[in-house]
């Protein structure tokens, strides 16, 4: 599903490369966790995978499409939930979703029904006409996810979808991700919550300073390194030093 070879990205104004010779493969139909400390290069990697960053070196193939030549085609097949709440705070949830839906060239009943069913699924249908800025943190995160599902993406990429949300919202988001995956969609997700990742992901890739540290199923890499859980393994591999 995702095939990356010797990926390298150095921002013009940055001191060090943000992604440094990274190679990995993710299989189709899985939930994969992209993990790493702050500044490890997770967002940068994701931005390259979805075509937001175009200046990089290396070979990237997503859903069988070469990134450099097929960015437009790829955009139809993937959904990206940005780390930020990428919605207009002054617009209502419904208006935001209508707008993004129309940009995907959806319209009329099809769009209205799709928005309605997603709002129900995420427990937001009663708040559809509330402005996003009046949403709670958890509601914002859920709305942020809905906006990336309007095109029924084959591959869903989420950058910290559960950051700053309460237990209830988190549990709703995670159960949605599981069921979405069971319907045959692939998911790549980043998080700093390692017990969450351990429970959710079929496979994890830990990176640090833009480099690959380890990849495998949570169970296999935890046992292989003789650690009690993913968090202990993470600390063992990435160290205790606080990142700038």
């Amino acid at each position, binding site marked *: 599903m995702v095939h990356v070879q010797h990926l390298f990205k150095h*921002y*013009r*104004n940055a001191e060090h490369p943000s992604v440094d010779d990274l190679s990995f493969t993710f299989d189709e139909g899985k939930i994969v966790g992209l993990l790493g400390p702050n500044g490890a290069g997770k967002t940068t990697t994701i931005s390259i995978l*979805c*075509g*937001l*960053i*175009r*200046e990089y070196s290396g070979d990237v193939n997503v859903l069988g499409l070469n990134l450099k030549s097929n960015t*437009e*085609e790829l*955009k*139809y097949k993937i959904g*990206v939930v*940005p780390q*930020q*709440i*990428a*919605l*207009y*705070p*002054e*617009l209502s949830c419904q*208006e935001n979703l*209508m*707008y*993004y839906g*129309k*940009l*995907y*060239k959806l*319209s009329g009943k099809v769009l209205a029904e799709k928005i309605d069913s997603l709002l129900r699924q995420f427990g937001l249908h009663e708040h559809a006409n509330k*402005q996003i800025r009046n949403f709670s943190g958890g509601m914002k995160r859920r709305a942020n996810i809905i*906006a*990336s599902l309007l095109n029924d993406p084959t591959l869903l990429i989420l950058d910290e979808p559960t950051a700053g949300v309460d237990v209830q919202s988190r549990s709703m988001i995670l159960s949605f991700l599981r069921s979405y995956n069971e319907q045959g969609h692939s998911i790549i997700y980043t998080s700093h919550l390692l017990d969450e990742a351990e429970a959710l992901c079929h496979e994890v890739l830990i990176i640090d300073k833009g480099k690959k540290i380890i990849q495998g199923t949570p169970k296999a890499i935890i046992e292989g390194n003789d650690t009690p859980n993913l968090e202990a393994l993470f600390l063992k591999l990435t160290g205790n030093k606080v990142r700038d």
Partner: protein
Amino acid sequence: MQRIIATYIKEWHLMRRDLGGLALLFLMPVILIIIMALVQDGPFKDYKDHTFEAIFVNQDGGKVAASIRQGLLESKQFQLIETYDQKAIDFATTQKLIQKGTYQFAILIPDGISAEVVNSANLIANEMGRQMGLPASLPHRESREGMSVQLMFDPVCKPAFRLAITNVVEKFITKIQSDIVLERIAKLSQSAVADTGTFDIEKQLRSVGVKEISSQEKKMMVSKMNSVQHTVPAWAIFGMFFMIIIISDSIIGERLGGSWTRLKLIPGSFSDILIGKMLFYVLLGIIQFYLMLLVGIYVMPWVGLPSLQLGHSPLLLLIMVTCLSFCATTFGILIGSIFKTTNQALPVAAISVVILSAVGGVWVPVEVLPDSLRAVSLISPMRWGLQGINNLLLRECSWHDIVKPCVILLSGTMLTMFLSWMIEKKRMDQ
């Protein structure tokens, strides 16, 4: 098309909730236009229509001084202040009152003025009589140098005001002097000239005057130049450019808020989104401009100013305003592309609008600017907008008179769009 319309509607939803932005776009320019039209009405007004309060100090007890006083009173242009605190005003009090700004100017008649005027009138009359072969019979002496009616102004008074007052008083004194000369000549010759009953000396003296005539063949509705005709279009253009604050704010907000990222993740050309956004603001600019014109037409009479006349080419005016609005919109997009935060963009946007309008002829006509600034004004979209709109509202004008301003404004539009695109591309490729 669907994407363009969707973006247009989204901008509308954002705008209608942004009360501050709406106030900046519609309320502020309305207030600005009314205030500016009132303020700038002053210099356009004929000072003849105005009554001034003037301190009048008469140190001369003579006849001429008395007739100057009488004349000033009768002219109704001056309200003479001769006492203060129930005391006659002297030179020292005058200085104090003017310095304090209690009154703006004073007219001082020094001692000896009457004698001097009569003396010089006698001199003239005698000389004229001599040339006519009459004996010089009026008493006279050598004329004294440096005798003059003195004017004292509040230091705050503008040069234009001083000049206007000086002219009025000077004209007035000249009239009194010539009256006296005529009277002397009449006395001297005892001729029919004295018979003012059949011969109107006043009228003869004014047989050649100065009168403004129209440069226009067809008689335009604007019969007399007035401040409204100049200030309303100028300040409406100024108000339109305030839109750049709102546009740059919107663009930076979208970029920082992450919506920009999402928009770029959606397949399809980004230009649809940009066009939708642009069209919204272009239309907003046009609506705003016409609202300002309506203020010029309907509100100005309420505040005692003449109503704005729209000229004869509504279609050309619409074209001109559309070009201007395109230019303002893309300028806002450029500012929004250049700066990373609104804190950086807002002052630059506001100050650049003020600078471009100052060199563009909004405050004072481009013609009175120094050469260097006049060269700079060539890059001000306000200058070209104002030129085109003035052509339509003040002159009789056909389409070829607005081609140049329109082409320049649209070229500016394309240039700013190109620059914004370059900057955005560079940002993407960092």
